[in-house]
Every structure is written in structure tokens, then in C-alpha cells.
């Protein structure tokens, strides 16, 4: 980590897609992206649709390969790291909560939520207890816990995903619309989970279309249009 304690730091990152099968068209989608998030800080990415908020999140998570620049998370340059380094980063340090749940069929909800804890070597019972607490907090009825979430409604799946995302206390988190389409009570729960995470020192980058929510949990906003080629001044 740098001396200024940034947990997540992007330095002059660019991203483009080369479509080899469509005349090798090169589409630049991001350039000059720089960003710094310290522990306990929550930064909101803003900008109109299509300006690259999700792309930036994916670059930080290592899901998209940065074309140039540095993507430092907990001191590791994700843009150049080996797969196993990124995997261990994702396991221990960097959490990602998307709107959509992607799980293996047949695994019970309780275990889906406990999995990130088991992955970092937590005691099974402690992990299951914590998972149960989180599922309660996001209002998933206990009778559903032994079922696979693949059969749940969209809203339920989203909440299971949130519970899973907050099971392990990651020092860095990426939140992609965590409160989208939640009712008031569940929205409140999720916001309090985010506040708890900040309080324990997590560095968070998020996309929030919910302006009220953004105002409540985010310390700063970064407009990604500034990094969009052709849009930036």
C-alpha cells in the first residue's frame, strides 16, 4: 500500500476493445482514468449510461483487462497480476456485489452466503451462523435457506447476493447498484450494511442510481465521463 494508505488506486488507466471479427475495429472506452479510495471511504461513480461506470468496476475487479496504466488494489497491480494473485485478492481483499446472482445449482442458500467465509478458512459453524444472521437481516425467510437460490424471485436473489457479498469483511468492495429495486425496508438494511463496512474501514467504490442512497453513504463522487474518450475535454 502507498504511504497515503489508498486501498484502491487507479493511475492513468485506459481500456479499449479490439473486435477482431469485425474488421479489427478498436473501440476505446476509457482513458486517463485515475482514482484513489482510502479505507473507510465510499466513492460513487457517476455519469450517464454508457460512459463506462461498469467497465471501470470490472477493470478494478480484474474482469476486464486494462490496456495501460496501473490498477492497484491493496498494493497489487490487477492490470499485470497473475490469475492466482487476482483470485487470492478476490478471496481475501476485494469483494464485488453485483445485481445478479450467479451460483451453482443445488447449493442451499445458507451455504451460498457462507461460501466466501469458508473460502478464507473460517470455521464452518461460525460461517453458517454469520450467514444466517445476514439472511435474517435481508429478510429472506428461514424456510428458504435450505433451498437453492436459483429458484428464488429476482428480488430475493438480489438480497441473497448482498448477504453473500457482505459475509466476509473485505477491506475493499465494489458495489454495482446494491439498492436497485429494493423496497424501503431492505434498502435501509443494505445502506446500513454499507455504513457498517465503511465504519470497519472498507474502501468502497459503487454505482448508485439511487441519489438519496448515494448522498447518505458516499463521501465523494467521480464522474466517469471525464475518462470517456471523446467526451472528456
Amino acid at each position: 500500500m502507498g504511504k497515503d494508505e489508498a486501498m484502491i488506486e487507479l493511475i492513468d488507466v485506459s481500456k479499449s476493445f479490439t473486435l477482431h471479427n469485425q474488421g479489427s475495429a478498436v473501440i476505446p472506452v476509457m482513458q486517463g482514468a485515475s482514482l484513489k479510495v482510502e479505507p473507510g471511504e465510499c466513492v460513487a461513480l457517476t455519469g450517464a449510461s454508457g460512459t463506462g461506470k461498469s467497465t471501470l468496476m470490472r477493470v478494478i475487479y480484474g474482469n476486464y483487462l486494462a490496456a495501460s496504466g496501473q490498477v492497484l488494489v491493496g498494493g497489487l497491480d490487477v492490470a499485470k497480476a497473475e490469475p492466482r494473485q487476482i483470485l487470492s485478492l478476490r478471496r481475501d481483499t476485494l469483494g464485488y456485489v453485483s445485481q445478479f446472482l450467479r451460483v451453482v445449482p443445488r447449493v442451499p442458500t445458507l451455504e451460498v452466503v457462507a461460501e466466501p467465509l469458508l473460502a478464507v478458512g473460517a470455521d464452518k459453524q461460525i460461517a453458517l451462523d454469520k450467514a444466517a444472521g445476514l439472511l435474517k437481516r435481508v429478510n429472506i425467510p428461514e424456510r428458504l435457506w435450505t433451498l437453492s437460490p436459483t429458484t428464488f424471485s429476482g428480488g430475493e436473489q438480489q438480497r441473497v447476493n448482498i448477504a453473500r457479498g457482505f459475509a466476509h469483511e473485505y477491506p475493499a468492495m465494489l458495489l454495482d447498484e446494491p439498492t436497485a429495486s429494493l423496497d424501503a425496508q431492505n434498502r435501509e438494511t443494505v445502506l446500513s450494511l454499507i455504513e457498517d463496512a465503511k465504519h470497519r474501514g472498507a474502501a468502497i467504490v459503487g454505482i448508485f442510481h439511487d441519489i438519496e442512497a448515494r448522498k447518505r453513504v458516499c463521501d465523494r463522487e467521480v464522474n466517469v465521463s471525464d475518462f470517456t474518450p471523446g467526451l472528456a475535454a
Partner: protein
Amino acid sequence: MTPLLQVKGIEKRYGARIGCTDVNFDLYPGEVMGIVGESGSGKSTLLNCLAGHLEPDAGQVIFDTRVDGPVDTVTMSEPERRMLGRTDWAFVHQHARDGLRMSVSAGGNIGERLMAVGDRHYGDIRDKAIDWLGRVEIEAARVDDRPSAFSGGMQQRLQIARNLVTGPRLVFMDEPTGGLDVSVQARLLDLLRGLVREMGLSAIIVTHDLAVVRLLADRLMVMKSGHVVEAGLTDQVLDDPQHAYTQLLVSSVLQV
């Protein structure tokens, strides 16, 4: 950390034709790597070179053995290599009949590797066989049935039990879900995923099914015409493919 397997410059030719060439990678303990590519891309040739079934024309396959540390398995003696093949290595064939003894009961199939490494207590062998049947979700009552009386999915699960009973550290899988119904595939994948995590297995899985690698593999290698054209983190390669062939492969999958 020492890699469990270091693959250096592996090449296999069939006369003038390239089976696979210039393959290099390290596999670390607990990692699962997928190898994808179309038929004839060299992925099975590569797997067979790695598992000692084919002798590569060039290169090294260095395995971190329990006793002697890293050893090149290409140049080790055949008895040593075969010993690895029934202790620290496992090979799951696409067709269960290639990996099972069809005339031997399920229990005998599972027990074979145990007996091969010197287990001589019938009761213990049988207990372990029954335990493993349970772990691959086959009823204990089927322990004395022959695999020919099993469904395709059960045969494949039995093959997996037979391979994993000696607690190998590296599992080679050649299209483990090929030829199975989709629902049976899902169950098998889920089972494999659980076993891999539970036992801390490293695995190399050859498949042409991108859904299989997304679910099972941490890392991905894409092969075309015997060459590795792209390698990286599975989700990165699938979501942000860099090579023309990978882009074609990913975009060719029908969305459900």
C-alpha cells in the same frame, strides 16, 4: 509457493502435423485450469502429454512430488510415472467405460487404487468404497452392482470416486461432462466443484463447453491448431477475450 505442476515448452508432433507446441504454464496447489478449444485444437493431445499417456517430443512436465520435490515426469522411469498415476494423479475419462472396469463391482472399482498401493484389509477397503459412493451420491446398496447396471451419470460419478479415493493432488479431466444430459451435467459439475474445494485438488479440465469452465475453472487456456492463443483468469478471458479466436469462440455460444 512451489507450483504443483510446471509445464515447459511441451510439444507433440504427429509426423509433420503439430499436435500441440510451445505450451508453458505453472499450476499451483488448489488451482483449477480449463483448456478449451475446438476438436483438433490439440487440447486432448496436451492433456495426454501432461498425464504421461503420450510422450511429448519436447518439453518438461515437472511435478512437485511428495518425497523428492519437483521432478520431470517426462524423463522419470515408467514405474515411477505409473505409481504417480495411481497415487497423486487421477485421470477422469470422457467415457466412463474407459476409466472403469465394467466387469467389476462398484466397490471393487473404487477399491482397486487402494489395493494397488497396498491396502490389504477387506473391511477397510469396503468401508472406504461405501464412503466414497456416498460422496458421489450413489447409494451404499449399489456397492456390489456392476457399473454396467448404472446410468451414464452414475458411471461418471463412480469413475470420479474411483479416481479420488487415494486422495490425489492433481486430477486430469477429459471432457468430464461430455455426452451427459444437461441436468446430469449440472449435478456432476456441482459435485466436482465441491470435491475440488473440499479436497484442495488441483485440476486440469479439457472441455469445449465454456459453461463448464466458467463454473469449475479458475484459469483458462484457449488452444487453436496446437497453439495456446490466450490464457488468463477464466472470467476475464470469457468476458474480455483478447484474441480473435477466443472472441469467435465466446460469441459462438448460444445465449439461453
